[in-house]
């Protein structure tokens, strides 16, 4: 099913190009027309009154958006719909904007629906797109230029959050000096080690600092019956599921569950990322010798039975974590929202703790970072009131914490960007610690409305956290008191804490988007890479297959792509 979807979107992408080559020529005149229209309007506006970021339109303005609606989300009260709910009514009352849905789609199908709408040039007024779709739309000339609207209508708070706090994200939507979209800034996307601390304690071990330690711990997890059921049924290190990846790559750079990202970075290897090689030239991380070394180690771990022997076969690697078979996995910070909720229901003593480990040869944790922005709000160039979309974001940023989310989850806010200061999670860790230590009270943080979840976090921490307040092990929590609060606060206090406490050497990809040659060649190169690496790890091919892969990769377009990347980086 997955493959089918992929090939379909590939077909869609191909057709887009074909269709739009023909569409572009006719679009260019209407483009200039629209621009001059707009200019006239806005200067007229500016002359009569200064632009008001929260100004209510005198006449109702309509806005048709593409909406992501999760079918499992039943938070809307009876009678409300994705098109008519507390958010749309609030928007109508405050801004006089009538929001309608051009289409809705579930999260699993949304991307496909958006691609279809881009390919067929059947666009809603505004929608949320991903990086690739943003680039396509820009090249197709389908986007409204938001520069002027942003300058005039973005509220000071919105400008602060986007231009100051998340400048890196803002750069990704600025094409030739023009703002073509609004970015949703992502957190750093660091992958860390989650480990069963109760198993470590039982076996008298410490969290593994180096790769050598890690191997010892994994071996003890597999051989020494850490769950004490007398059966050799435990897994040392979880591996990716059948649809998963061994490492995040420059295109999908965040939220890789059960991969081996920290193991690779412990060897200074960044497969899937564009990094500098030994000579300082841009190179693809998967082709560098460090990656070979890391693959050799993984192959070794797998052969010894320390990595899940069913990796890449399981439909969901989270299952063995929930059932208490797995001792260690690598994932982002938000695992409280992931398998851990069910894991502690199965075994309330499963003490999952997170560490910024293993360390590399220099004794440092050197994770790779995700793209600064993964999702974007775009406006169709044919839409007459692009500033209305900016106003929606102004309103959301100002009033998000006022909504009662039991009457409709925040996902129903049209074209919502999750906006916040870039240190939101880290700041929360520190604030919660201060409140727990008694050095500050929740009231001390009342002047921080842009940290929209902070007030709630500080008020509920003592409900789910037991004394002693400075220990984060599972026995010092009370999840059943408020499962929702526990989920978030455990993720924050256990998952984010290493980012606050451990100095890190953060590595970015030189590039987070596709170049021209990739459009035709990347799918095949990526397939070759995935298959070769998987075979090497599970022992289906020798480690030296790696060298052949590098040669083939370069020959089959890799060299050309590398040159393009070097060119793009120089600019």
């Amino acid at each position: 099913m997955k493959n089918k979807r992929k090939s379909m979107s590939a077909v869609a992408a191909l057709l887009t190009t074909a269709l739009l080559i023909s569409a572009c020529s006719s679009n260019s005149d209407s483009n200039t027309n629209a621009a001059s229209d707009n200019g006239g309007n806005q200067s007229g506006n500016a002359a009569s009154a200064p632009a008001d970021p929260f100004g209510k339109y005198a006449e109702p303005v309509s806005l048709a958006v593409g909406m992501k609606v999760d079918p499992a989300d039943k938070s809307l009260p009876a009678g409300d719909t994705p098109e008519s709910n507390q958010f749309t009514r609030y928007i109508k009352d405050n801004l006089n904007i009538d929001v309608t849905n051009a289409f809705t789609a579930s999260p699993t199908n949304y991307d496909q629906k958006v691609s279809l709408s881009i390919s067929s040039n059947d666009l809603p007024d505004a929608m949320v797109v991903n990086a690739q779709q943003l680039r396509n739309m820009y090249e197709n000339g389908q986007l409204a230029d938001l520069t002027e609207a942003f300058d005039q209508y973005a509220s000071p708070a919105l400008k602060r959050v986007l231009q100051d706090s998340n400048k890196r994200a803002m750069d990704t939507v600025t094409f030739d000096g023009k703002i073509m979209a609004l970015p949703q800034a992502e957190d750093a996307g660091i992958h860390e080690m989650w480990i069963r601390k109760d198993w470590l304690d039982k076996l008298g071990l410490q969290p593994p600092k180096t790769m050598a330690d890690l191997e010892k711990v994994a071996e003890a997890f597999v051989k020494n019956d850490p769950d004490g059921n007398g059966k050799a049924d435990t897994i040392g290190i979880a591996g990716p599921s059948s649809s998963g990846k061994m490492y995040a790559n420059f295109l999908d750079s965040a939220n890789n569950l059960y991969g081996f990202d920290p193991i690779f970075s412990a060897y200074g290897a960044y497969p899937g990322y564009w990094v500098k090689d030994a000579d300082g030239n841009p190179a693809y991380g998967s082709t560098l010798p460090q990656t070979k070394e890391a693959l050799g180690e993984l192959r070794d771990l797998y052969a010894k039975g320390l990595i899940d022997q069913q990796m890449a076969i399981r439909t969901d690697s989270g299952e063995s974590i929930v059932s208490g078979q797995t001792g260690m996995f690598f994932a982002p910070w938000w695992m409280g929202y992931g398998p851990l909720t069910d894991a502690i229901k199965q075994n309330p003593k499963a003490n999952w703790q997170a560490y910024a480990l293993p360390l590399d040869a220099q004794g440092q944790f050197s994770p790779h970072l995700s793209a600064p922005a993964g999702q974007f709000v775009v406006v169709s160039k044919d839409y007459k009131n692009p500033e209305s979309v900016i106003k929606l974001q102004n309103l959301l940023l100002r009033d998000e914490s006022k909504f009662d989310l039991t009457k409709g989850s925040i996902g129903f806010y049209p074209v919502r960007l999750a906006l916040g200061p870039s240190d939101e999670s880290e700041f929360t860790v520190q604030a919660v610690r201060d409140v727990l230590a008694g050095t500050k009270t929740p009231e001390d943080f009342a002047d921080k409305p842009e940290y929209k979840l902070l007030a709630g976090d500080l008020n509920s921490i003592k409900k789910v956290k037991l004394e002693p307040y400075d220990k984060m092990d599972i026995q010092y929590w009370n999840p059943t008191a408020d499962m929702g609060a526990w989920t978030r606060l455990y993720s924050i206090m256990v998952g984010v804490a290493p980012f606050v406490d451990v100095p890190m050497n953060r590595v970015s990809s030189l590039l987070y988007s596709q170049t021209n040659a990739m459009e035709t060649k990347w799918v095949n190169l990526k397939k070759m890479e995935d298959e070769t690496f998987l075979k090497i790890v599970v022992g289906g091919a020798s480690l030296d297959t790696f060298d052949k892969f590098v040669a083939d990769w370069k020959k089959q377009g890799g060299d050309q792509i590398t040159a393009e990347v070097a060119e793009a980086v120089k600019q």
Partner: protein
Amino acid sequence: MVKDTTLGSKAFDVLIVAILVLVALTCILPLWYTLAVSFSTKAAAAGGQISLWPVGFNLNSYRQLLQDNQFFVSFWTSIKRVVLGAGLNLIIVPLMAYPLSKTIRDFRLRNVLMWAVIFTMLFNGGLIPLYLTIKKLGMFNSIWSLVLVGGAQTLVFNVILAMNFFRNLPKELDEAALVDGAGPWYILLKVYVPLSAPVLATVSLFSIVYHWNEFLYGLVFMTREQFYPLQTYIQQVVVMLDPSTMSTDELQRLSQLSNRTLNAAKIFIAMVPVLVVYPFLQRFFIHGITLGSVKE
């Protein structure tokens, strides 16, 4: 028939039965497993601890399912789609297959038409032209986009199947009817169709199963969940989220909503109609035998 009772043949029987049981199990076990999951607790399902028996038996999933209005709206859409689609299929297939089953002597344009039909089977415009066509026809969110587009896609195969069946009917029946003064309509409706119950049941079954299971067009042509047919509705809740394509903010909201036991209940209920239709159509397969209708 004489029964062979040697040891070798008995062993052979045992082997055959064993193989058949194995094949049957591969079909039945997934259904059984889905049923077992639907009766289990959520945490057990998330932990993959269910094999053949429900863990922590309960009816919560079905209770929840009863409150899910959209499930039944989609269910009804699918029923409408199947009735319209299979009905239309049943009318058009014999009408098309009958002339095409004639030789070029009886029907001059037969080969041209046949190639035109085959052409559509091999080539098509692709998804985006289809999307634009349906949009221009104003059939978005209409049941007819599903009935017609889906119907057209399965029609050719069904017509070829029926055509070949018609060709194998004894020519003498045709000639006898002609001599008795029957026109083509009369021959088709009174001679061919009654004799073709097996093939018509087969193409109907194909059409019913296709319309019931097809989910992609629902996704493409419907802009609102409320218009989705059942399998589209189920597809969107069952497909695993790919976390790397989503923002962390979204994942935090969505990962709390996944509910495998409820999904299993939905899948199981959605299977029931087709399971019921199968044995019902089965009886047509043995009827309509033309053996002995012609003396040679």
